[in-house]
């Protein structure tokens, strides 16, 4: 899945989530929308629901199985939840890592 498609898909879902939360300006959702922190556009329940929906859609419609809420995601210095775009980068990163053949890592591939 291309990054651009992923961002577009998530912006669509965020727009929907804002509507569901009764936001007055759901149209403001974009790739730069902050998902976490003081400026977050969604409530924490809204964010949890959005993330779970993203996981479900990726699995059901794109056959991509990822867990987005994890120790790894929360321990990063730059949070993957800071914006929609950052989340898209994170999804691509971990799904590629998961699809690498078993036993072959970046370090051992060449040796």
């Amino acid at each position: 899945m291309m990054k651009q498609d992923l961002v577009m898909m998530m912006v669509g879902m965020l727009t929907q989530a804002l509507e569901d939360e009764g936001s007055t300006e759901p149209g403001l959702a974009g790739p730069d929308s902050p998902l976490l922190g003081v400026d977050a556009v969604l409530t924490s329940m809204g964010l949890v629901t959005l993330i779970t929906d993203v996981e479900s859609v990726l699995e059901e419609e794109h056959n991509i199985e990822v867990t987005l809420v994890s120790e790894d995601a929360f321990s990063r210095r730059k949070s993957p939840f800071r914006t929609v775009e950052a989340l898209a980068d994170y999804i691509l990163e971990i799904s590629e890592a998961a699809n690498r053949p078993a036993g072959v890592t970046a370090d051992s591939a060449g040796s």
Partner: protein
Amino acid sequence: MEHIEWQLNRFREAPGRPAIIWRDREYSYGEVHERYRDWLGRLRAAGVRGGDSVAVLSDFSPGAVSCLLALLKLRCVLVPLSREARDQHREFFAIAELDHRVEIGEDDRGDVIRMRNRRGHPLLQQLRAADKAGLVLFSSGSTGQPKAVLHSLPELLNKFRTPRHCYRTLVFLLFDHIGGFNTLFYTLANLGCVVVADDRGVASVCVVIEKHRVELLPTSPSFLNLLLLSGAADSYNLSSLALITYGTEVMPERTLKMANEAFPGVRFLQTYGLSELGILRSKSESDHSLRMKIGGEDYETRVVEGRLFIRARSSMLGYLNAPSPFDDEGWFDTGDSVVQEGDYLRILGRESDIVNVGGQKVYPAEVEQVIAEMDGVIDVAVKGEAHLLLGQVVTATVQMADPIPAVRMRKRIAAHCKGRLQKFMVPVKVGVVAEGQVNRRFKKIRR
């Protein structure tokens, strides 16, 4: 007088009356009495003595019931084990420190097999020293290993001597369940008739109710739900039913409402009991109400911080494989969350099932009730799932008549819950299953 002598005197009052209907044949009180004497001789011949721990592996049958009565007479420790728990039997044999086991076969005859598991557990020794019969039941703990509950039988059986209404009663709960045990001894004490179904599927149960004019159906909300969904009330003549009792789990309001509509004229009574304490006497506010009074002469109740505590004269002696759960004054923490509404209590659910979403409590039963109202939903189970952001989140698994993508269903549920539940109670994750056991049974009946 010992309970067994009292019970046998009752048998002598009505030898011709049916005591048990098993595989469509009636067994009279006279016949059960005869089989009891037969068992007494066989058990003695096999070396069974007072204080021995003896398992009976069976389901409800005339042979199994007679054998239990003979073991009661011998003042043994009775360990009823249903065939359905077969996988756990070896473990149970050791925990109950069996001296013998009786395996009742398909022909309703049994063999007494010597076992050597006695290790002298202090509670069992206490019972032997007092020369009293006992009962071991394994409670299906929601987490971890089943706990072996040891009762002293004279205390547990005492309440059955107060005369009560006599019914033709279907034994729905299992042979090794406090509810099944209670149904059996209540019915025998009042010279009612115990009716045994071939299995606990909706069809078998309905066939037996129709054929043998069953009056009392003690059951669970889940079974009632299945019964209603199957439409069986229209396919079978269930008009003999006078009373349906329900317990063991939280009753959804919708199920109770539908059940009242499907069975007009039938009374509905909520029951409450625990393996550790026996079954309390209960009284529902009305057929339509989930509020009830519980208690009875042998029980005291109190609510502390929304949690139900019970003190019983006939409570168990203790667990054979866990520390005593009673406090210094003998109160037992049921783990059930309740609301006190005037003189009545309403059960909200097990405290351990409560989902904690960022510090806010969610009762799965409450969410399930709302989702169950939706069209196309056959069944729903709500639980908590660990979540890094909120501690826990609410998830639901719904069984649908027609397939639907999970996210779309999640949204439908959210829309339906809006205004009915608070936001944190709405499932953030939904799984959809098309075919479950319910559905298979459902189809089988309709065909």
